[in-house]
């Protein structure tokens, strides 16, 4: 029973030696096991920091939203690859292939459900993550550019959802994509050209499906794979997450540092498992929607955009198309991009809602929007009609500039009312504007999802 220099017993069988070669150290002494465990840990430490400030581990700082997004993206990649084996991207086959997937393939319906729910929940998670970053001031230097990367990421996730929406080729998807791409009609200049590029022709048809399939399954996943490490790397370069603190505390103190293994990793794994379990449960009980096969000759009533674009569709019902589909989105993008680049009197990174005054003002703005938006929608639906009151005006003015002016003047009045009471600084003011329009947009989206019935008239859900 001689032992060789490196301690392997020559008498053990082939299977065992193979096993040892794959998992060296598993049957050896405690010391070797410890060594190999350390290898695994150093592997993990390629992705996660060695030590993290213990205060950033607090769940109420991040709500685990970034980590949840990663888990959902991985689940989407996994189920997406599986779906690719069953799906045919041709108008005369796509719908049938989905039916085949759901009825004949083992777990086909479940896989589709997981993909569907992960995609929709990802959108919500990414949106909440965006709110968390804004309200903890995590866009101040040195995190300015990571805010932009995050916004691009958000757009990518939106586009992924949107391009995936067409693929089942049922009535729901066909008409949603028709009206959403129809909105390009109103973008001045390059609108029609863009529409033709996206549709691959004048109307939604086979080329549109080919385009969307390629974008959904190759281009956007590639973009996501590139964006994710970039986003995380910038977090690391900024010195990790923002340190949660009260307004009085200095933002330089990092506090006690603790090793990531196990403190951070265990938390991340636990959250991932809970989320996966949650998605699985939802996917078992709730099927992804599938209506009858797309029929270009019959528009369903009502025809709605995907739920995440219903805010814009709702705006479109109140404003003329040029304003609703061009000026408002462009203004939104400019405002969001410029948030980290305005000159702020104080760096509020790590403080929820910038200050305690900021918190009160944010609640005030949210409440104001909560009251004003439904009133505005009802008034515009039933009372106000400038086109009739002042005949002869072009619709751009009567349905565009006048209502927009009223909204802006109303908001400015609210702002003037609020300002002397609080003596707000710029941090708090920007936050108030953000809260007001964000709440308004959410209410518009909710109205679009649940309170628009036949003919897009207001109705109860």
């Amino acid at each position, binding site marked *: 029973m001689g032992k060789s220099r490196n301690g392997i017993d020559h008498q053990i069988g082939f299977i065992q030696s193979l096993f040892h070669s794959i998992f060296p150290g598993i049957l050896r002494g405690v010391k070797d096991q410890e060594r190999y465990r350390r290898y695994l840990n150093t592997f993990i430490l390629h992705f996660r920091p060695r030590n993290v400030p213990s205060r950033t581990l607090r769940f109420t700082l991040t709500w685990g939203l970034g980590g949840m997004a990663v888990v959902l993206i991985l689940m989407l990649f996994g189920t997406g690859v599986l779906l690719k084996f069953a799906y045919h991207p041709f108008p005369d086959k796509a719908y049938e292939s989905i039916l085949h997937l759901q009825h004949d393939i083992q777990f086909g319906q479940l896989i589709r459900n997981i993909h569907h729910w992960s995609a929709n929940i990802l959108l919500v998670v990414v949106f909440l993550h965006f709110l968390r970053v804004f309200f903890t001031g995590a866009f101040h230097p040195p995190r300015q550019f990571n805010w932009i990367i995050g916004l691009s990421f958000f757009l990518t996730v939106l586009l992924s959802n949107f391009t995936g929406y067409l693929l089942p080729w049922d009535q729901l998807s066909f008409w949603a994509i028709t009206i959403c791409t129809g909105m390009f009609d109103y973008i001045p200049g390059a609108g029609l050209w863009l529409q033709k590029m996206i549709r691959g022709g004048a109307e939604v048809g086979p080329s549109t499906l080919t385009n969307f399939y390629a974008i959904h399954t190759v281009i956007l996943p590639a973009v996501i794979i590139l964006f994710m490490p970039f986003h995380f790397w910038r977090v690391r370069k900024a010195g990790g997450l923002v340190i949660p603190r009260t307004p009085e505390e200095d933002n330089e103190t990092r506090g006690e540092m603790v090793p990531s293994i196990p403190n951070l990793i265990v938390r991340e794994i636990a959250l991932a498992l809970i989320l996966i379990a949650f998605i699985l449960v939802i996917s078992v009980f709730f099927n992804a929607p599938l209506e009858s096969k797309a029929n270009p000759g019959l528009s369903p009533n009502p*025809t709605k955009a995907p739920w995440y674009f219903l805010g814009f569709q709702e705006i479109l019902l109140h404003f003329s198309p040029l304003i609703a589909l061009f000026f408002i989105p462009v203004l939104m993008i400019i405002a969001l991009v410029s948030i980290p680049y305005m000159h702020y009197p104080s760096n509020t990174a790590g403080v929820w809602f910038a200050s305690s005054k900021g918190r009160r003002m944010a609640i005030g703005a949210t409440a104001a929007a909560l009251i004003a938006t439904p009133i505005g929608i009802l008034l515009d639906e039933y009372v106000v009609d400038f086109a009739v009151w002042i005949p002869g005006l072009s619709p751009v003015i009567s349905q565009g500039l006048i209502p927009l002016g009223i909204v802006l003047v109303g908001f400015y009045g609210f702002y003037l009312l609020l300002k002397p009471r609080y003596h707000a600084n710029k941090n708090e003011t920007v936050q108030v504007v953000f809260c007001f329009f964000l709440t308004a947009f959410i209410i518009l989206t909710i109205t679009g999802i649940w309170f628009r019935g036949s003919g897009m008239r207001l109705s109860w859900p």
Partner: protein
Amino acid sequence: MSEKKRKKIKEEQFPQDPSRRSFLNKLWIGLGILALFEFALLVMAYLRPSKTGVKSGDSETIIEAGPVAKFHLDSVTAFIRGKFYLCRLEDGGFLAVSRKCTHLGCTVPWLDKEKRFACPCHASAFDIKGEVINPPAPRPLDLYRLFIENNMVKVDTGKRIKRSEFRAEQVVYAKKVQT
């Protein structure tokens, strides 16, 4: 190493004229950008929707709707293959009206009882001439070119014609002499 000495070594290593050097560097960058630009153009040209080869006026796009007498006054007939409605007005004139709503592109059905096209998507409505009765549609329904040969109504579906308002000259009449 002093700053002077370092500078001297640098000059020995790169004896060329610094302005020439920077010029060449800029040239490389410029060429790189140009190559990228060309590449982008190439991709765009590749992705641009290809022309199907069928043009307006080709015999393939022309649909023979039927003899003039087949269509009653003040009636609307749907042509599913051509994606249009053939409208015969009360005065006997013809219009070939696109079935696509001018708001966001939904398909508008003709409601015979109410005598109007009603879009199910956003409640736009159009009369028999395609004129807007109810917004949000911004302009009348698009037209297709319609002509009457030997008392046969024919429609060229190759090109949709946008219009900002209804005008009398859009209506096509059968020649009275023949009837």
